[in-house]
């Protein structure tokens, strides 16, 4: 009876609104995905695509404007920098650095986050207390400052940058995974697995982990933008992947004092960062709406 009553009371959903929402959800974010595809492809095939050597310049070709400006040549589509290096080639190779750093950082950060999140959520008790306090402390320390100090003390190399960025991203994964595990471990299928004699690692990785994957995918896409921004900020401040490797942040920094004579040196790599992060965010928002209805917002 009660069920019937609620059925009657419940207002009919507006069919048009639901249809519209469904249509919007099914619609792929085409432009962001196109930009991301370009980003990944240029990153992977950088040596094949780049028209020039990104690290070699010519003194005759210093500060040449982009081809559409007066004095620009079609040889250097986006112009050259203060050392005569081709800006376009450097932006292309910069995509490679950002891509590698983001991939490795997220891989490592996610790994640490997942393992500690699973442990904290599953075992509870002092393990949970210690891990979550470490997360709290990490989130209470300003990220860039910590990263700068670590890079200064440990030295500037690719591995160290990745390690520092992984330290920056793992807490959010840990916290979210823990929350999911707390919920999942009360489920019947977990109890059944226990009764069937499954070992703890088996329960954690075969039974519980799959339930966390959707959240992880969404979180990871949203974190890519953050990692790219962090990496570029570090390299802008001179604490990124060491030169002459072309990283977007250090390229923006190269053009800092030359805005009046050669605005394109800073502008182009910055545009590349913005477009990539923007596309990643839009794609992540869409993915979140698709995969995780609980996080869905009115838009």
């Amino acid at each position, binding site marked *: 009876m009660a069920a019937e009553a609620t059925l009657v009371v419940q207002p009919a959903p507006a069919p048009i609104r639901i249809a519209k929402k469904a249509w919007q959800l099914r619609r792929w974010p085409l432009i962001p995905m196109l930009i991301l595809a370009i980003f990944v492809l240029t990153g992977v095939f950088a040596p094949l695509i780049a028209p020039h050597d990104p690290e070699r310049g010519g003194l005759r070709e210093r500060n040449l404007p982009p081809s559409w400006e007066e004095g620009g040549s079609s040889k250097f589509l986006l112009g050259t920098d203060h050392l005569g290096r081709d800006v376009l080639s450097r932006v292309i190779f910069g995509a490679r650095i950002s891509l590698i750093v983001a991939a490795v950082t997220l891989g490592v950060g996610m790994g640490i986050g997942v393992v500690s999140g699973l442990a904290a959520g599953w075992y509870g008790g002092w393990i949970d207390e210690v891990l979550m*306090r470490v997360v*709290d*402390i990490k989130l*209470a*320390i*300003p*990220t*860039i*400052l*910590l990263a*700068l*100090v*670590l890079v*200064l*003390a*440990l030295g500037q190399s690719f591995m160290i940058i990745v390690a520092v960025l992984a330290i920056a991203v793992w807490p959010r994964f840990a916290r979210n995974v823990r929350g999911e595990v707390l919920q999942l471990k009360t489920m019947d299928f977990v109890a059944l697995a226990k009764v069937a004699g499954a070992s703890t690692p088996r329960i954690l990785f075969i039974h519980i982990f799959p339930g966390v994957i959707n959240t992880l995918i969404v979180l990871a896409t949203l974190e890519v*933008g953050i990692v790219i*921004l962090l990496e*570029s*900020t570090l390299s*802008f*401040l*001179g*604490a990124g992947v060491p030169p002459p490797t072309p990283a977007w*942040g250090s390229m*923006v*920094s190269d*053009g*800092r004092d030359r*805005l*009046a004579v050669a*605005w394109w040196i*800073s*502008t182009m790599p*910055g545009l590349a*960062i*913005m*477009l990539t*992060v*923007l596309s990643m*965010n839009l794609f992540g928002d869409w993915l979140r709406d698709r995969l995780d209805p609980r996080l869905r*917002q*009115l*838009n």
Partner: protein
Amino acid sequence: MQRYLLRRVLLALLTLLAVSLIIFVMSRAAGDPRHVYLDDYSTQEDWDRLTATLGLDKPYYHQYGIFLASALKGDFGESIKEGRPSTEVIIERIPATLQLGLAAFIFSVVVGVPLGILSAVKRGSVLDTIGKMVALVGQSAPVFWLGLMLVFLFAVRLEWLPPYGRQEISSIILPAVSLGWFYAAANLRLLRSAMLNVMDSEYVKLARAKGVSNNAVIWKHSLRNALIPVLTFAGVTLGSLVTGSLVVETVFAWPGLGQLAIQSLAGNDYPLLQAVVIVFTLMYVAVALLVDIMYAYIDPRIRYA
């Protein structure tokens, strides 16, 4: 309530302790600290004296104790470059950073809040599109690049505003806008979605059905409730505005703590760097603590959670 407060204060202290430990380990890992203070012309007595002051002949935990004790007294040693106590150098820089942070905060509220309300109320209008652009740029453009682009446009091309420094009053505009933009974007997004949520709720529909005027529905019924997440975020913002100044102060040569931190990093000025990092963290943690305590007073759900 008391338990909650105690927990928050303990966590803040723990954070500071962790940071001091990181800094201590870093400074020891980077090499013999005596090389930082002394050079080839120092005498053996200088070396011995410093060894005693820093406790270098004692075990590490004892050295950390000495470091911590003097840090608590506000003594971080003399800045190598300036040749005077680090604390003194830092205190001079604090006003500039606070000024910039405050200006950026005001910008983020003045731009983000009205645009957020209007883009929710006039959904799909030109204003909504403008709001979307502001939000998208703010959340994806790197702060340092945004700053440089503003300099290029308003200082180099139009020559309306000074490109860097802190000589004129108008000098603060560009750094404040670059620093505040991200938070303006966040405020805008939060408020827009909160407003849409609230305006879709039953009591707002009831108010409309009762014939309450549109303005009253928006300003009285909706906005008050939609402001809660924005206020929450504003608290978080205050702390990160302080550290956001690291980048912005470097771009605009703004003579605050952020610039000092980068300078001490670049110049290997360890005593000064340690002090700056501690002060930064202290400000960050203190603001977060204050905000949390405020919420506990405002929102009883937090107290008993």
